[in-house]
């Protein structure tokens, strides 16, 4: 090699070899990770499929916030979410999702929604009934027999409750030092009923039920008149606060209306998934074939980079995890086609340098550095677009934007690292040097 300046910059062949093996190893490991966690159905890293692929129901409720102080709305929405979550959990669906969605600031309309996703549930009748149900707050007397505790209806229900407040016991109130307690106020009618019940059952527990579940079971200390009572029961502050919320908002804190229902049968989703996977595999094969035919040996290396790209993306989908929808899958297939772009840019540059008389390794190096500004600016704008889409988009668009954004970064990374490392381990050659040089040359002369 006559150019000493270049020779100085060169890493040793051993180093280059080690780097190349390392890159291949990482790619291989990623591939193995994706393969083994997909084959093993009990793995911790399954693909997370969206409702349109896995089947299930997607319900959107709109909360009526008219007549509520706008500052309180976020808090009320969270309470609403908790209540609905509890109700949805009754179904034993795996991984139900309940999300608060506030309409975008930009659209002006101020609407608050609750999105409920129920994977696997396609008959939404029961779910809709359960979610929209008015919950029941009940006070029941407890009769402890030898075998079990019996709960006896008292007729006192949430209908008679005016409000509940969280308080902290004062030191002077007989032993209630600083303990969080729940103070409740009944309506006039409720107050009478409450007095009657408590007067005749002093010393017995009075169980408070919400949606058929015992929330707490305080002991009646004395007959209570005046319609207010303090529930103490060794609460932690959090428990007491939850109880207050449950009592006050036993009925949903905000009226809700079902505005959108979508259900997809699991078989339909499975069909969509298998078609998407087929399309992806064939798409990759076509791109690989094209790259190999047009760019020959570098094309083969681009193929390795593309496969690493695929493995990296799939591993990201599993680890992050990214919920895959039909749109996301389509976005991924699109990104396969685009992922080779950085390679194409570099190879075209290398070809120019190679034809201008540089040896192949030098051409590779300068090809990379010269293509860099185009790769950077092109990918940067794509990435910015992805971020904006993620910001503004609805959940469907968000899924696509996430795949697209990851794709941009991953394709840049694999093109620069994998392709580069593998290209520079090739023996150096010049344009005139026969068969091997022809393997590196490519395409038509323009």
């Amino acid at each position, binding site marked *: 090699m006559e150019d000493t300046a270049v020779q100085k910059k060169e890493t040793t062949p051993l180093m280059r070899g080690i780097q190349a093996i390392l890159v291949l190893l990482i790619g291989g490991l990623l591939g193995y990770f994706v393969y083994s966690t997909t084959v093993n159905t009990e793995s911790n890293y399954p693909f997370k499929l969206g409702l349109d692929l896995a089947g299930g129901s997607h319900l959107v409720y709109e909360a009526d916030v008219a007549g509520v102080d706008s500052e309180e709305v976020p808090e009320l929405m969270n309470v609403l979410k908790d209540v609905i979550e509890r109700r949805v959990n009754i179904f034993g669906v795996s991984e139900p999702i309940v999300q608060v969605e506030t309409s975008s600031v930009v659209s002006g309309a101020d609407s608050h929604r609750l999105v409920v996703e129920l994977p696997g549930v396609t008959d939404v009748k029961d779910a809709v009934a359960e979610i929209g149900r008015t919950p029941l707050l009940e006070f029941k007397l407890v009769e402890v027999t030898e075998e079990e505790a019996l709960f006896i209806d008292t007729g006192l229900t949430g209908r008679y409750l005016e409000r509940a407040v969280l308080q902290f016991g004062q030191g002077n109130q007989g032993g209630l030092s600083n303990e969080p307690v729940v103070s409740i106020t009944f309506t006039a009618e409720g107050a009478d009923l409450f007095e009657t019940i408590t007067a005749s059952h002093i010393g017995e527990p009075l169980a408070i039920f919400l949606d058929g579940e015992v929330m707490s079971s305080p002991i009646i200390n004395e007959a209570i008149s005046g319609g207010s009572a303090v529930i103490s029961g060794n609460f932690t502050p959090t428990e007491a606060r939850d109880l207050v919320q449950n009592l006050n908002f036993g009925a949903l804190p905000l009226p809700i209306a079902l505005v959108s229902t979508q259900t997809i049968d699991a078989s339909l989703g499975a069909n969509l998934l298998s078609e*998407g996977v087929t399309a992806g595999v064939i798409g990759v094969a076509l791109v690989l074939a094209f790259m190999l035919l047009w760019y020959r040996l570098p094309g083969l290396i681009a193929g390795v980079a593309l496969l690493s790209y695929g493995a990296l993306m799939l591993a990201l989908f599993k680890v992050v995890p990214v919920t895959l929808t039909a749109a996301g899958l389509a976005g991924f297939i699109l990104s396969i086609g685009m992922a080779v772009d950085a390679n194409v840019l570099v190879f075209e540059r290398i070809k120019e340098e190679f034809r201008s008389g540089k040896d192949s390794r030098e051409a590779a190096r300068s090809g990379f550095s010269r293509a860099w500004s185009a790769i950077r600016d092109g990918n940067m704008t794509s990435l910015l677009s992805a971020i904006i889409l993620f910001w503004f988009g609805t959940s469907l668009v968000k899924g696509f934007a996430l795949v697209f954004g990851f794709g941009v970064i991953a394709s840049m990374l694999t093109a620069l690292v994998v392709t580069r490392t593998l290209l520079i381990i090739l023996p150096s050659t010049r344009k005139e040097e026969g068969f091997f040089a022809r393997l590196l040359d490519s395409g038509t002369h323009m």
Partner: protein
Amino acid sequence: MNIARYTKQFLVAMVLIFIVAIGVVSTYGLNLGIDFTGGSLTEVSYTVAPEQAMLEEELDSLFEEGYSLRQSEDGETVGYILRSRDLSEEERETVYGVLTSVGEGGVVTRFASIGPVIGEELKDKASWAIAGVVLITICYVAFAFRKVPKPVGSWTYGGITILALIHDVLVPTAVMSVLGITFGAEVDVLFVTALLAVLGYSVNDTIVVFDRVRENLLLNEEKKTGKTFETVVEDSVKDTIVRSVNTSLTTILALGALYFLGGDTTQLFALTLIVGVLAGTYSSLFIANPLLVAASRRKKA
């Protein structure tokens, strides 16, 4: 590839494309799906499908304001797709009952009912997202090209990128409009997603060509080769055309697989993207560069 000589022709072609595309979209509009308009879609499949007339007889009494019932075939199963206004929970149950009461083995495989408010909001969101992408693109390009040698300023590069981008979105939209009136193709959220992806692709493609222009201009200045701006643009197109074509080819190969094998749901999505990628490749070569040349001529004049 004589950009400089045929600048006028390329620009006339561009104006024609814009006029035709805008004309088509404004005349025929887009066939908006329930994602935007609100409404419901119920897909039912049977082992033995009933006659369409039989179903229609039942449905006529249910919907006064009209509905559409279309036969659908997916492999070996036969079924129908019913479109109507958005349904409440009770109405949904009634419709399910009617659809499964006739024929044999009727199962509802897909149901969607979307309130009009959500559709309206989606339109808003989509418009804002597109506007956001356009804005950030023009700023980034103006910034990235801030050191580009004269005669054309960096904001002009940004502006031209946006014009090319509008072209790339307009063409698939016009195609969708035509497909809407000929085949009843509906615009849904996936279509918007496809357009957004076209935005990303289009900008990327235009920037690669402009990057080469930038580089060649700098080289020209350094080496004092004294090439005219028009020659530099032309050289840059020659330098990047193979890359442009190859990248769109690989992208279209992948999308072609999605179109032919990816199933009904994403077929229109793939088609929109294929048209968008073709438009993007065309515009980054034969719209962006003639506009650059025209801008430089105007500067001189």
